[in-house]
């Protein structure tokens, strides 16, 4: 994991370990710094150690679910951009995760279109250089 101060960091919360590995691979390939957590609680602990520049999270996870994780992290960093990947999209869409005055939330349903996801990540979190 090569990283220096300017490399944007993405925290990936995904309990499907095989999916998490592939995503980590993709994001590293794109040039992001990546930290993978196996559930919401692990992601929260990782964020407490070091707040990421973007959260990429699943919704249904053991211990702490995606919504709880988003609320906890937004409590610490309200402008944190969030990308949600889920197999079950709430009926009111991205509005379910976002409160007024907070950073953007993008929503992707599974199976995730990885090309579209990477485009969105680049928009939310431009790579320097």
């Amino acid at each position, binding site marked *: 994991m090569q990283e220096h101060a300017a490399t944007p960091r993405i925290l990936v919360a995904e309990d499907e370990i095989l*999916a998490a590995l*592939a995503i980590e*691979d993709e994001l590293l*390939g794109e040039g992001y710094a990546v930290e993978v957590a196996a559930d919401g609680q692990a992601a929260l602990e990782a964020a407490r150690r070091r707040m990421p520049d973007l959260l990429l999270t699943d919704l249904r996870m053991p211990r702490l679910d995606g919504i709880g994780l988003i609320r906890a992290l937004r409590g610490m960093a309200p402008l944190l951009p969030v990308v949600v990947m889920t197999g079950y999209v709430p009926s009111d869409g991205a509005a379910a995760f976002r409160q007024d005055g907070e950073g953007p939330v993008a929503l992707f349903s599974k199976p995730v279109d990885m090309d579209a996801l990477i485009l969105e990540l680049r928009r939310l979190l431009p790579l320097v250089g």
Partner: protein
Amino acid sequence: MSSPLVGAWPPFLAASGFCSLVSPELAWLHLLSDLAIGLSYLSIPAVLLVVLLRRRDLAYPWLVGLFALFIVACGLTHLMHAWTLFSPAPVLDTLLKAITAAISVTVAVTLWPVLPRLLALRSPAALEREVMERRAAEERLGTFLANLAEAVFVVRVHPDGRLQIESVNPAFERMFSVPGEGLAGAAPETALPPPLAELALPRWRKVAEQGAPMEYEITADLPSGRLTWQTVLVPLRGADGRVERLLGSARDVTATRRLQAGLVQSARLATVGTMCAGLAHEASQPLNTASLWLRRARAAARGLPEAERAAFARAAAVVEDQLRRAGDLVARIRSLAGAEPEAAGRFDAKEPVAAAFRLAASEAAAEGITMTLRAADGPLPVQGSAGRLEQAMMNLLANARDAVIERRRNQPDAPASVEVALAQQSGSVVVEVRDSGVGIPEAVADAIFDPFFTTKDPGRGIGLGLPFAASAARAMGGRLEAWNRPGGGANFRLELPLADAGAVPAGAGAVPA
């Protein structure tokens, strides 16, 4: 015995018992009184006789006759008295008196037992009062019937079995949208709307023939729309025991039945929704992982020699294609759960319906199917997702088109039309899609909104179109129902609650991300 007082005139006072008539004046008075009484007694029975002849409905006519006889007899005895002043006729006089006595005793004896019955007879004043009371009661009943919410009708049953409408109340006219003035006296076969006559008359005839009350429920497409009503039909018998009339009362239960069907459909869709949500979620995980690893595999294959890389690319394309197909299916199943991220807002139902109609009409025209759209004037605001409603309409129209094509396969000359009607009906926006297709088989009518249920040939539909339309209706607080049309084909009715009055924004805005 002769009186010395008797001269040539006054008359010869020879009758026994008149010797006390000491003066001619008294004798005259006696004679004239007897004549007056006798004549009066003859006149009174004449009056009684006229009454007896004219009023055949008298309570005791024989009693009146007996009275007349009694009075005649009494009159004759008085006339006899007058006669005996001039010429004594003791035998005739006595005989007449005896006859009168017999008649008098008969009348006296007969009268006593009749007395209680005579007293029980109501006086004309009492009768008049009763008539007034009955008229008032009749008027109250008339007002009651005129304002009753239930439709009331009276049908006359002729001895030959012919039925004739005798009267209907205003609720009947309203419920079945028939003008009342044309109904009274008319034959139901011609006066009632055909679907109503077709379904109700066999039941009317049965009650007329069997003479037992009957309760039934009918659903029919009337000129005013689809109606479900419950009827209680009671036979009214005449004195001879024959069923002379049918008294019917009908209650409109359309809204109740709709509500019940809606609740059943809603419960069913809720179950389906939960199942679909779970299925979509669980199936999306492995599909997601597989898609992500296919990308990894592609990346890893970049280092392969040219020929192997091409072979791998072909294989990967097939896998990707199949994963996408499975992903699309998951997306469609997910949409049944009503959980697609979409903008909800107020919009004019006309817009998505017209948009879906335009798309479908151009396709249908190529198939030789006539499509028409009739819409009420003015906006029809509803609350929900315009995109979802458009998709639901696309599904309904595709379903109608397929049904028409299927019917035409077997009957090339069958009509090929799809009508779409958009209207406002008491707090709801109603979209009806009527096709001239094969209709819904009776046996599967309950299953057509179940996911993956289809009557189409394999490859022509997977059975998610109608469930989606039903689920979209439910998500907007409405419902979808379907039935077969009397002339063939199906009628789908999508009902959505009318949004509160207010401005209708054009289209639905996006939710800020």
